[in-house]
């Protein structure tokens, strides 16, 4: 045994065993976290949302602090403004949203939706022979039935989402108010050898992520608002929901905009049955996408966190498997976070004498 150890020690360069052990621990920890993901789903979602929100609101709190207001009061003021904006949005949007919810639920509960689907199938079948085959029709019917059943559980999901939102807001407040103190305390536990590296890494990662998340949310907000406005002008039903969905879906590169445009195209087609209305919606969404990719995104979203298209497809599918629709939405931001972290950690390991 001792001989084996001696041979190992002699043949390996100094620090290699420790390096291998460290990577093994990191690998194990990663797999452990991935394995725990479904169990800790709701907690994780709340924490991620609170982190995103605090990164989003941090510059506003800093702005107040810059004007001489202390940190606690700045955080309270930002939250007061948010609540005020939420109340205004609630006042304005409630009639639109409740009208849309009731019409959507009425559409789902009565026969009209089945008729509409039949209508859609017929129209598609007339134009594209593939859709008129019985096998395809049965498959579509099955999917539609499944979708309608799941709409009932949506109400429960909405209630728990509201609870989670309150929790996330509560945590965000403390992240904003005591974020620096929490960071200082956490970093004080670092051994001296890793201290400076951790300090600079945390700063670099937080700066890049803050910029990325703020940029993404701002772009989504712009795209969402423009989509709502365009659909309102084109007189498409559920324009608010569909527009907001398009804004959210925009966070997923490449096929996000397509996913966002699909409901609008389907609804426009169902309502009018004309190819012209589809073209109008497609042109509107295409123009918004062009505006976003030429004039908005290059100035707002950081290029350093861009992912390869293949990576995006893989992570979106993995996100969907792990956390469902929310996982798909979070997959790209979370992967970007992991990318930024790995790039920065690898920079830190190359530049600091961590293993000597």
């Amino acid at each position, binding site marked *: 045994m001792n001989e084996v150890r001696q041979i190992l020690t002699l043949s390996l360069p100094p620090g290699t065993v420790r390096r291998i052990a460290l990577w093994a621990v990191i690998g194990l920890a990663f797999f452990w976290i991935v394995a725990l993901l479904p169990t800790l789903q709701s907690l994780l979602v709340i924490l991620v949302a609170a982190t995103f929100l605090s990164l989003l609101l941090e510059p506003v709190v800093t702005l107040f602090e810059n004007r001489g207001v202390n940190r606690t009061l700045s955080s309270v003021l930002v939250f007061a403004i948010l609540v005020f904006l939420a109340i205004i949005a609630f006042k304005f949007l409630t009639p639109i949203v409740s009208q849309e919810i009731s019409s959507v639920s009425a559409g789902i509960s009565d026969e009209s939706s089945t008729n509409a689907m039949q209508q859609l199938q017929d129209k598609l079948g007339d134009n594209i022979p593939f859709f008129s085959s019985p096998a395809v029709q049965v498959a579509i019917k099955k999917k539609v039935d499944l979708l309608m059943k799941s709409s009932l559980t949506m109400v429960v999901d909405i209630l728990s989402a509201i609870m989670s939102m309150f929790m996330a807001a509560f945590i965000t407040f403390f992240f904003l108010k005591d974020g620096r103190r929490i960071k200082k305390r956490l970093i004080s536990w670092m051994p*001296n050898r890793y201290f400076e590296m951790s300090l600079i890494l945390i700063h670099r990662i937080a700066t890049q992520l803050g910029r990325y998340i703020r940029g993404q949310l701002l772009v989504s907000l712009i795209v969402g608002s423009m989509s709502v406005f365009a659909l309102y002008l084109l007189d498409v039903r559920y324009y608010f929901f569909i527009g907001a969905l398009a804004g959210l879906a925009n966070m997923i590169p490449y096929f996000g905009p397509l996913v966002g445009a699909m409901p609008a195209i389907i609804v426009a087609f169902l309502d009018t049955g004309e190819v012209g209305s589809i073209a109008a919606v497609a042109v509107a969404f295409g123009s918004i996408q062009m505006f976003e990719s030429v004039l908005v995104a290059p100035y707002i979203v950081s290029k350093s966190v861009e992912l390869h298209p293949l990576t995006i497809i893989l992570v979106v599918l993995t996100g969907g498997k792990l956390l469902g629709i929310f996982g798909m939405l979070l997959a790209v931001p979370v992967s970007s976070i992991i990318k930024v972290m790995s790039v920065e950690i690898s920079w830190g390991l190359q530049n600091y004498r961590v293993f000597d």
Partner: protein
Amino acid sequence: MPKNIETKPAQSLGFKVGDALWSNIFKKENAEQRSTLAIMKSVPIFTGMSKPQLREFIKIMHNRQFKKGEAIFYEGEPGVGMYVIQKGAVAITKGKGFVEKLAELSVGEFFGELALLDESPRSATATAVVDCQMIGLFRPDLFDLVERKPRLGNKLLFQLACLIGARLKRTNEELETVWARIEDAKVIS
């Protein structure tokens, strides 16, 4: 035992114990803070700052302990910030094979201040000569303070500029002296 002590209410004794406990904790905090404040006042980049302003800096500074022989940072690593020695002594060395000792710093002295401005590599290695206690001010925290409290942050940056300016002036003077000597040597030869 005297009668008056026996009849003393337990509650008042409790308060006394409590008061002593709290006053000791605060006394300890104050003593620690006082010593940190006194050391910070002796550091040129904190010159002219009031106590509340120095306390703002203490809030963003990190306390670190180093064992004898432990490296604080290595030459060539990206610089992150400066350290002020509270207890102990630090050796500043240069080189890997042949190690040249540039200086030994003691309580109240500081080093690594250029790293507050940029990420350029450390020009020397700093090692604890004995067990040390230090307070560190680091660039991310300083830049964050500049954003949040620009007046205070700029005050420190101005002091840092003065310090670097004075050093540059001294270096120029030394360079001029050396240059004059070289010229003299040329004339003689």
